[in-house]
């Protein structure tokens, strides 16, 4: 599964993209796995309410299933326009 990070999430974790092997069934489980890895992940995912998640390039929720998902992206609320 590809995991992408944008904006300050990318900066805190220190990379824009990585491949992970995971047994997580939903986004929250994936976040818990990532947080357990290293402090920089724990820092990036400290406040989930400040983050958004997209599954296969569609905005989604943290309780959404990861079944069949190939690309997960984490980022702060968008500030376009």
């Amino acid at each position: 599964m590809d995991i992408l990070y944008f904006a300050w999430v990318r900066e805190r974790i220190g990379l824009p993209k990585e491949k992970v092997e995971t047994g997580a069934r939903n986004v929250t489980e994936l976040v818990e796995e990532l947080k357990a890895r290293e402090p920089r992940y724990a820092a990036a995912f400290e406040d989930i309410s400040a983050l958004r998640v997209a599954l296969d390039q569609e905005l989604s929720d943290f309780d959404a299933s990861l079944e069949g998902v190939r690309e997960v992206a984490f980022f702060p609320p968008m500030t376009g326009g």
Partner: protein
Amino acid sequence: MRIVVQEAPFDLGAETSRFAEGHKDQGAIVTFTGLVREDGGMARMEIEHYPGMTERAITKIAEEAVTRWSLGDTLVIHRFGPMQPGEAIMMVATAAPHRKDAFEAAEFLMDYLKSRAPFWKKEIGPDGSDWVAAKDEDEDALDRW
């Protein structure tokens, strides 16, 4: 419907002319343009985006606008990468038979582009850089649609 996501600057006047020229059967044209504000403090702005998702998200927003209002056409141009104060960041244009549709659709597009298209603004000043924080009012603005 034309959706452009690009790094290069665009010519607001030329794009506005071109859009209006193509919609002489409509009667009402509304444009919105967002500029990097020249307020002295900021050296430049950088916009990060999510290639692939950006185009999908904007297309979805524009398609929604077309189903909700009687529109002849809609245009969205949004830049990413570095840009200087005074430069245009993005524009939307709507063409409709009636002004109410053109205005409402343009406001709808803007409200959704602000909070649902994957762009992130970073302001770079003389003392460092900061990611622009999303405003509660921008999220609240979606409630009216």
